[in-house]
C-alpha cells in the first residue's frame, strides 16, 4: 500500500474514522447534541477529499485512477455515487436529530453505524474486483442490520433479525455466483473477466457462467428490493427506526445499483447471456407487484416499503435499456445515465417523505395512514412536503420524479423495449391511487388545528433542502443529467 492508495481511499478513511470517533465521543461526552455536529464535520471532510479526487481525475489523461492492487477505481462514476451517498448521509443525520435525541442511550452508535455503512456503500461504487465488492457489500449491510435492531423493542429487534438473516442468505448466493464466475474466467477482476469472456479463454462451458450470473442477480436482487426477492422489505421498513429506513431506502439502493451497473456493463458486457431481457422482465414484475400490494396498505411505512419495490422496478428499466458505445466515444441510449439521474431524484424525493413522516410519527405516535387524517392543519409545511414528495414519486411535473421517469422510459423506447415503457407508464397511473390517498387523508380528513407539530432547526434545514432539490432538479434537470452522462461515459472508458 502506497501513499497514493491512501489518498484514493481518503474519503472513506475520513468517514470511517469519524464514525469510530463519534462512537467513542458518545461514551465521554455529556452533551449528546454535539454528536451530529461531529458526524457532519466528518462528512464535510470526506466531501472535500472526494472533490479533490474529482479535480485530479479530471486533470489525468484517462479520467480514472486505480489503486490498492488495482481493486479500487476512482472515476467520475464512483465520484457521482460518493457525492450522492455523502449528501444522503448528511441529510439523514440532520433529519433524524429530533428522533435520535429521544434515545436514552446509543445515540453515538446511531451516527457511527450510519457513517460506517456509508463507507461500505462508497466503496461499492468504487471497486472493480469481486472480492472487494463482496467486502464492501457486507460493510454496507451489517451496520444497517444493527441499526434496524437499535431500538431493542419488539418490532425493532424483529426487523433487525429478519434483515440480518435474509441479507446473509443473499450474500451467500452472491458469493456462490462470484466463485462460479471466478472459476469460469480465472479472475475476480471485472476487466479481466470481460477480456476472458470476449476472447473465449475460459475453462468451463457457458452454463457455469449463466449460473454464476443468475446467482449474482439473486444476491443483488435482495439489496435493491427487487421482486421476487422483496419479502423482507415491508417488515423491515415497518419495524426499523424511521431514520434508518430513510437511509436504507435511498443510500443502500443507490450503492447496489452502482455495483450492478459496474459488474454488468464492465464485467459481463460481452457475455453471451441475455441478461438485459432478464432485467426487463424483473423490472416489470417489481413495478407491478409493488404497486398492486401497496394499494392495500394501511401503515405509511409499509406503504413506502412497497413503493420502494415499485421504484426499484422503474430503475431496473434503465439497467435493462442496454446502452452501447459508438467508436468515437459517444453513447447510444440513455439507460445507465437515466438510472443515475433517477437514483439522485429518488433520494431527495424519498428523503422528503421520510423526514416529514419522522416528525409526524414522533408526535402522534402512530404510523397508520388513517391517523394522518387532517394532519395538514397541524403541520402545514410538513404536509406540503409529503404532498410534493408523493407527486414526485408518481412522476408528475414539475418534480424530479417526472424528469427521471421521462429519461428512463425514453431509454427503454430507444433500445426497443416499448412494452416495458408502456408497463411503466401504466404502473405510474396505478401508483397515483395510493400516493394521492395519503395526500387526501392529510388534507381532507377532519383534524383539530390546535397543538401544532414542532420540530428543530436541523430538521427544517434538511426538509427545505430536499424539497428544493425535488423542485429545482425537476425544473432544471440539465446540469445533473450532464454529470450523469459524464459519469456513465467513464464507466465505458474503464472497460
Amino acid at each position, binding site marked *: 500500500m502506497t501513499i497514493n492508495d491512501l489518498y484514493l481511499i481518503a474519503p472513506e478513511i475520513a468517514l470511517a474514522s469519524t464514525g469510530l470517533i463519534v462512537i467513542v465521543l458518545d461514551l465521554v461526552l455529556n452533551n449528546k447534541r454535539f454528536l451530529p455536529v461531529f458526524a457532519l464535520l466528518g462528512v464535510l471532510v470526506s466531501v472535500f477529499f472526494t472533490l479533490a479526487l474529482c479535480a485530479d481525475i479530471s486533470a489525468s489523461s484517462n479520467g480514472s485512477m486505480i489503486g490498492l492492487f488495482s481493486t479500487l477505481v476512482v472515476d467520475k462514476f464512483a465520484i457521482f455515487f460518493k457525492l450522492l451517498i455523502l449528501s444522503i448521509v448528511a441529510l439523514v443525520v440532520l433529519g433524524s436529530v429530533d428522533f435520535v435525541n429521544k434515545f436514552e442511550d446509543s445515540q453515538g452508535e446511531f451516527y457511527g453505524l450510519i457513517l460506517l455503512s456509508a463507507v461500505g456503500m462508497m466503496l461499492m461504487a468504487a471497486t472493480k474486483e469481486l472480492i472487494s465488492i463482496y467486502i464492501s457489500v457486507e460493510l454496507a449491510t451489517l451496520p444497517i442490520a*444493527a441499526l434496524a435492531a437499535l431500538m431493542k423493542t419488539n418490532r425493532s429487534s424483529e426487523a433487525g433479525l429478519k434483515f440480518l*438473516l435474509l441479507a446473509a442468505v443473499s450474500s*451467500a448466493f452472491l458469493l456462490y455466483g462470484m466463485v462460479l464466475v471466478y*472459476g469460469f474466467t480465472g479472475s475476480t477482476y471485472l476487466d479481466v473477466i470481460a477480456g476472458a469472456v470476449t476472447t473465449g479463454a475460459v475453462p468451463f462451458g457457458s452454463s457455469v457462467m449463466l449460473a454464476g450470473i443468475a446467482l449474482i442477480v439473486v444476491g443483488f436482487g435482495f439489496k435493491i428490493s427487487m421482486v421476487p426477492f422483496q419479502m423482507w422489505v415491508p417488515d423491515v421498513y415497518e419495524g426499523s427506526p424511521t431514520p434508518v429506513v430513510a437511509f436504507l431506502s435511498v443510500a443502500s439502493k443507490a450503492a447496489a445499483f452502482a455495483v450492478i451497473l459496474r459488474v454488468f456493463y464492465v464485467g459481463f458486457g460481452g457475455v453471451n447471456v441475455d441478461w438485459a431481457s432478464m432485467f426487463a422482465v424483473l423490472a416489470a414484475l417489481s413495478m407491478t407487484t409493488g404497486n398492486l400490494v401497496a394499494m392495500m396498505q394501511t401503515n405509511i411505512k409499509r406503504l413506502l416499503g412497497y413503493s420502494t419495490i415499485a421504484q426499484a422496478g422503474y430503475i431496473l428499466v434503465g439497467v435493462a435499456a442496454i446502452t452501447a458505445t459508438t467508436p468515437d466515444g459517444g453513447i447510444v441510449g440513455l439507460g445507465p445515465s437515466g438510472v443515475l439521474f433517477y437514483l439522485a431524484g429518488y433520494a431527495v424525493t424519498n428523503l422528503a417523505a421520510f423526514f416529514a413522516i419522522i416528525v409526524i410519527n414522533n408526535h402522534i405516535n402512530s404510523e397508520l395512514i388513517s391517523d394522518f387524517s387532517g394532519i395538514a392543519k397541524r403541520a402545514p409545511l410538513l404536509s406540503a412536503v409529503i404532498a410534493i414528495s408523493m407527486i414526485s414519486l408518481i412522476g408528475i411535473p414539475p418534480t424530479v420524479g417526472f424528469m427521471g421517469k421521462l429519461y428512463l422510459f425514453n431509454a427503454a423506447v430507444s433500445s426497443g423495449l416499448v412494452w416495458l415503457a408502456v408497463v411503466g407508464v401504466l404502473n405510474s397511473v396505478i401508483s397515483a391511487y395510493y400516493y394521492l390517498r395519503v395526500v387526501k387523508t392529510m388534507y381532507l380528513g377532519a383534524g383539530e388545528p390546535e397543538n401544532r407539530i414542532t420540530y428543530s432547526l436541523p430538521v427544517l434545514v434538511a426538509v427545505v433542502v430536499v424539497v428544493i432539490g425535488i423542485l429545482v432538479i425537476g425544473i432544471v434537470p440539465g446540469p445533473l443529467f450532464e454529470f450523469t452522462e459524464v459519469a456513465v461515459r467513464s464507466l465505458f472508458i474503464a472497460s
Partner: protein
Amino acid sequence: MTLERVLILSAVVFSIGLYGFLTKRNAITMLMAIELMFNGVTIAAVAMARYITPSVLRVDPTATSDGLVQFVLSGQVLSMFVIAVAAAEVSLGIAIIITVYRARRTIDVTEVNLMRR
C-alpha cells in the same frame, strides 16, 4: 479428486445449508445453516483456485508474483475473507437474537411475526 467432484461437494453443502435455512424455525439453527452455505462457497473457491493455479502456470511459466496474486490466489483470498465476514455476521446475528429473546422470550421465527398480517 477431480475438480468436478469437489464442486459437487460444494453444491451439496450449499444446498444442505439452504434447505436448513428454509425449514428450520430456530433463529440460531438458521444462522448455522447460513454458515453451512458459506462453507459450501469456500470449498468451491479453494477448489477453483487449485484448478486455476496449474493452468495459469502452464500458460505462462514466467508469471510474476503480482500476476499470480491477481489470478491464482484470488480464490484462496476470497475464502479467507468469507470466513472472516461470516464470523462478523454470526456475532452480530447472535447479538440481535439476544435482543429478540429479551423482548419476546422466544427465538422461534414463526412466533416472531408481529408485523405479518
